[in-house]
């Protein structure tokens, strides 16, 4: 069957738009961490943190390790390509600001034995942009 030449750009546009838009609805975790078990009778809350600096699995794990140090954090799931860390926490023991401070805290570098500051910055919590920390 003979085809018109405009079929090529049409196919390209349709597939590209479908792929870019479709990828927004698909999330596969880059890393997951079980920190502690929830206490029976409590209802964990999920916080969604968009973190600048979390761009790959390694940075996600490093930021998650910081958050895991907070008492009350139960589970962490990172989606590095979305710069996103989902945190399940016990609201009776901690809150988003404590988790944010922990994520933005100094990060220990095993290869140099030093702490590095300002590696990660939380820019959004549960869809709400947050101002830069002092």
């Amino acid at each position, binding site marked *: 069957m003979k085809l018109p030449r405009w079929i090529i750009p049409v196919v*390209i546009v349709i597939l590209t738009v479908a792929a870019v838009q479709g990828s927004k609805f698909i999330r596969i975790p880059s890393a997951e961490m079980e920190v502690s078990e929830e206490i029976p009778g409590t209802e964990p809350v999920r916080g969604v943190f968009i973190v600048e600096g979390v761009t790959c699995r390694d940075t996600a794990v490093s930021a998650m390790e910081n958050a895991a140090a907070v008492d009350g954090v139960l589970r962490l799931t990172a989606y*590095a390509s979305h710069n996103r860390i989902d945190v399940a926490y016990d609201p009776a023991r901690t809150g988003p600001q404590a988790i944010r401070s922990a994520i933005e805290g100094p990060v220990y570098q095993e290869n140099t034995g030093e702490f590095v500051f300002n590696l990660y910055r939380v820019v959004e919590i549960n869809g709400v942009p947050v101002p830069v920390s002092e």
Partner: protein
Amino acid sequence: MNITRRIFQISIVIAALTVGVRYAMGDSRITVETYCPFGGLEGLLSLVTHHQFTCATGERNLILFIALLVLTLLSRRVFCSWICPVGTLSEGIFRLRKRRRTPAAISRKWDRRLRLIRLPVLLIILFLTFLTGELIFRGVDPYYVLFSIHGHDVQWWSYIVIGFIVAGIVAVPMAWCRYLCPLGVALWPFSRIGLIRLKRTGACIQCGKCDDACPWGIDVSRAETITSGECTLCLECTRVCPVKDALELRTPGGAPR
């Protein structure tokens, strides 16, 4: 149609540069890697075996790679000539050349042999990426080096490597795409069975202009149907063809003559 393709190519180069500059200036969290379909292939093995992506690759890379496979099955390697910014750069250099055919020093036999280099390049990259969990190719990836605006992993020697690649493209048309591009070779088998093909009709006068115009060195005038996996449907052959409808886009089946 040629203008449409140019608009596609230039728009994508501008878009890639915009993404690179915005990320470098801290205005955006999206990197040029986010839209690289090869990242999807690099991360695929790790995703299957370890259920997680390699380094900075993610869902978008994977979806784009799957879409690219579908695109290639439908319309061959149009990605290379309509979308890929490195292909656009190569083609730009190709157009600046006076002599557009492959240099005589590289015989047809050697040209075919050299194209095989892409396969070990692809396998080495995939194996080492899987082994290290890092995008080790990033520092020498022309797309990343040119469009990330001195991004992560780009070193001084990255520019020397890119200089050699550009010199190679100046010496041999589309040298990077022909002999080294790992994504091109990954798409090759899918392109070979691609649905939309160029067919030569009985109107052809065998002038050979299409052969000279093909950036990939395909002898268009000698084949009835262009089945080569290298055909990117850039339609340069149809642009220079002096006879109307001597080259047609067709699906398999049904003789054009």
